């Protein structure tokens, strides 16, 4: 039985690439709009489309349940905005986040924003095992700034600013970059995540 991954659909943007990428890694994929179904999820992916408030809208009524599920060990991956909503809140919106990571999401202090394109992720995390080219695709204007810096497992430099771009707290991973848009390197990270999730499950 292959791992079943649940992708949350916030109702904005397309989920083709993330869905297809996870399927190519051998996972079964379900996309849900009814977030109460997260109560039974084996593995959760918060995809990287949309803005902060909009992405939290459908999740907010189930915030406590989702926090409980993730703290009980359900392997989770948040991508871009899907990672940002795992913080307590964001300068981009007024909604509370899920609060998996302590700290807030802040505006990038850079001249050219959005930070758009391929940039390097400096990380020794096991999810980077076998990734030879450390360039990943980014498109964002905000970044996660954790209180407990030990959740930062990777960083990226842009216009002389080094910001956290890769997070892990136990079973809960978050990437500022888009593995599903990062060609071979991104595929490898997702494969590693699926293996990690299967080991936990």
């Amino acid at each position, binding site marked *: 039985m292959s791992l079943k991954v649940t992708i949350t659909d916030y109702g904005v*943007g*397309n989920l*083709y*690439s993330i869905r297809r990428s996870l399927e190519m890694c051998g996972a079964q994929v379900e996309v849900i709009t009814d977030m109460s179904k997260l109560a039974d999820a084996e593995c959760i992916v918060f995809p990287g489309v949309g*803005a902060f408030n909009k992405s939290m809208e459908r999740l907010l009524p189930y915030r406590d349940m989702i926090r409980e599920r993730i703290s009980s060990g359900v392997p989770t991956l948040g991508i871009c905005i899907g990672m940002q909503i795992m913080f307590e809140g964001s300068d981009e919106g007024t909604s509370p986040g899920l609060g998996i990571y302590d700290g807030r999401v802040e505006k990038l202090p850079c*001249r*050219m924003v*959005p930070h758009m394109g391929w940039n390097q992720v400096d990380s020794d995390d096991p999810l980077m095992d076998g990734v030879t080219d450390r360039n990943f695709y980014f498109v964002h204007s905000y970044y996660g700034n954790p209180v407990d810096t030990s959740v930062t497992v990777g960083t990226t430099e842009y216009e002389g600013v080094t910001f956290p771009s890769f997070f892990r707290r136990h079973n809960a991973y978050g990437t500022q970059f888009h593995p599903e848009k990062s060609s071979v390197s991104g595929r490898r990270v997702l494969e590693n995540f699926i293996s990690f999730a299967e080991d936990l499950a």
Partner: protein
Amino acid sequence: MLTKRIIPCLDVKDGKVVKGINFKGLRDVGYPPELATEYELQGADEITFLDISASLEARQTMLNIVSETAGKLFVPLTVGGGIRKVQDMRDALNAGADKVSVNSAAVSNPDIISECAESFGRQCVVVAIDGKRVGDHWEVFTHGGTKSAGIDAVEWAQRAEDLGAGEILLTSMDADGVKTGYDIPFTEAVADAVSIPVIASGGCGSKEHIYDVFAQTGASAALAASIFHYNECTVGEVKEYLRDRGVNVR
């Protein structure tokens, strides 16, 4: 450090890539999803499809092509050409495009930029500007470079940024099709005037031209068509050339 992007552009008409394509092992008539994935393998950082069809039927064909490509391509895909309304942009994004470029419609109705940015996020809104030198400045041209809009191209780029554009796709009508290199002064003028990424387009005939535009302007990306389609060089060869000269590429 952020790398400079290389973006092959495919002109698509009635579901097929026009302009000669001669990759070995692929069909004689270029099939966009196959070509897009071939370019990803070569190291393309993004792919752009430009729909040059005129008919409504062809628009649906294009959306089908975008969907098929989105299921195979794992780098960002931009779709442009014939985007007139917010709904056109929504259709392209729903079909699987990551970004959508808007050109003439934004000139005649600038509010489309802010409406799209609010609805979908500014990162997916690319404003395409076709400019031509007139006297001591550059003017915006629309409808494939045939009609002057009577506005200054640098000012228009700044306005597009203020309205919510996430990126500028800048094509020099003077350089386009001539293959003597990108329009350096024009690209530099626009890249200096805005703080969103500028994609240089028009005039690329060699890898040296791509080096020149990165060495001499603040362009974030270079778009090219024929040098890749005619197999004059691969994306990988361009990148090796750039890397050897100190340009940071993936």
